[in-house]
């Protein structure tokens, strides 16, 4: 007895949207990165669920790949945050707008 794929899709999209709202709303770059992690994991969940329901392990493979990429991305992101902190810039994405046109 397992829920249909629909439930998994619903759960996954719910988590994705929560992460998305977090990215859009928070001003602290670290928390934005955390929300980004939520989004990535929601995608991973969907991948694994899909491979279970369709058959075949390809979804697992892709999920692991995504995990690796997410790790690398977190490294870069946190490195940026540390560099910013070292220079004394305010850790607030609303203040970091030198790309303002």
């Amino acid at each position, binding site marked *: 007895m397992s829920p249909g794929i629909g439930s998994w899709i619903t759960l996954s999209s719910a988590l994705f949207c929560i992460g*998305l709202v977090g*990215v*859009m*709303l928070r*001003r602290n770059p670290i928390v934005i990165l955390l929300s980004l992690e939520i989004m990535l994991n929601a995608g991973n969940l969907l991948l694994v669920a899909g491979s279970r329901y369709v058959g075949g392990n390809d979804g697992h493979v892709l999920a692991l790949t995504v995990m690796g990429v997410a790790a690398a991305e977190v490294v870069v992101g946190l490195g940026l945050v540390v560099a910013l902190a070292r220079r004394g810039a305010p850790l607030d*994405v*609303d203040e*970091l*707008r*030198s*790309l*303002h*046109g």
Partner: protein
Amino acid sequence: MNAADYGWLVLLTPLIGLAFNIAVGPSVSRRVVAWVASLSILAGFVLSLLAFIDLLSRDDSQRALVSTGWHWLSAGSFQVDASILVDPLSTVMLLVITGIGFLIHAYSVGYMHGDTEEKRFFAYLNLFVFSMLLLVLAGNFVFLLAGWGLVGLSSYLLIGFWWQRPSAVAAAKKAFVMNAIGDVGMTLGIFVIWNHLHTVDYTTAFALAPGSIGSGSSTANWIALLLLVGAVAKSAQLPLQTWLPDAMEGPTPVSALIHAATMVTAGVYLVARMWPFYSLAPDVADLVAIIGVATLTIAGLIALVQTDIKRVIAYSTMSQIGYMFCGVGIGAYSAGMFHLVTHAFFKALLFLGAGVVIHALHDEQDMRKMGGMGRYLPYTTGLMWIGALSLVGVPPFSGFFSKDQILSDALARGDWVGYTVWGLGLAGAFVTALYTFRLMLLVFHGEPSEYAREQSEAHAGHGEGPSTMLWTIGVLAVGATFAGFLEIPQVTHGMRNFLEPTIPSTIEATGNQDLGTSALAVSLALIGLFCAHVLWGRRSRTTRRIAEATAPLERVLQEKFGFDRLYDWAFYRPASALARGGARLWEQRAVVGSMDAVSNAGSWTSRLLSTAQSGLVRVYALAIAVGIAALAAWFMTGAS
């Protein structure tokens, strides 16, 4: 070479002078330019003489020569050739224009000597002569209009020659605008002619006119009336006469050539040339005569109170052209043209003589500062008396013959128009005598004013003026004396016979009418001389009492019957208010505003769009999310 060929050459001569002036002028001296300009007109005079002789050698029916140079414009059924018409009327005008023109060019060599812009002056003078020649030689209405406009342009350029003077510039603009009114009238008249006769060529139009346009019909009246508007504007008759006195801002030779001898007589030429139309519109022809009569009276009265010597002569010109208008209006075309010729002589003489006085007094034109110039300028004074007597109409000078010809022809015509012309013309002769002798007495006789005395004694021993000024007025005086003998009533009919084949005069006065009119006119002139002597010759108590009594009348005259003020209120103020309002509302708001709006719209749009570049990462993320939502919705609602 027949007369028409000479005609083309005559047309060319002032252009040669002008081309020389423009091309070589800057590198040669002013004197050379001046003489080349004058001699080119002399060449034109010689060629006109040759044309005249050629015409004389033909018999009467062969005297209208049309020569077509080339096909100028072809637009469907609107065909215009570059054609000239050489016939007795245009030959008379040619001789006057080139002859008097040459004399005035030569005079200007002396008068304008020392002026830094002398070359420009002669360029404009040559341009004017060319335009006037084009006007009289034109063989179709289009070229007539071209000459008409060019003459107006030359007049504007020459009146405003000393452009540093604001009054000169204003006068030039006034002349141009009023002439433009005339141009409009004339153009409309040509439109009507084209509409009915479908030709702009003179010979064709005149041949077709009697058949296609009924006598007294509204078409004929409109054509005659609209052409009359042009003539009235150019000849400074009522109601478009206000520009002529102001045109005296130009140099004296200009006043002599343009505003006495030639340009202002173009209106008379026009009526004479268009006689087929005027014979078909007798009411308008009567109107011509009435305008002439009104103008001659009013102008003569205004001349009585002018203090500027040139303005007196200008009003006199206006008055004399009124006589010419009477002449051509009542149908006495040869009488009108005869007066045109003699007037050209003695009026140019008067203007140029006044120029000698002005030159001697260092550009002083106010008669109250003159006086007693007779003892300093005897030669000029003598010649001016010839001119004055000719103007007044004292035999044996030319004005006597021509003016009285018009008056006796008016008497011969007999109806109310004729009698009005005769009566008011005689009264006008009295007034003419009054203002003319006033001029002579105030300027040349009596006690010299302080200023005159100083200036003349400073110049004593230098002669009366530059030599070219003196011999030219001598020649004019000879013409003023002897030109009258062309048309001694009942004895010689030079002018009438010459003009008859192409411009038939409808009236011929009898011997008794001639004699009677002349007797009356001469006696009125002599009474005028006496009155002038009384009023202005000696200052006595009577003169002062009369002056006080007529003071209100004098004020009316000094206001020039209020025409200037009327035109200012009726036309100038509304127009300038409209222009100012238009500039503020339309030009500022609409035109400039719309361009501002376009550029503002551009910058507003870019500012609007640049708010999207906020630099805020969150907003970008929001934009992406919204985009995803929208796209997903679009796909889900079944859009392809």
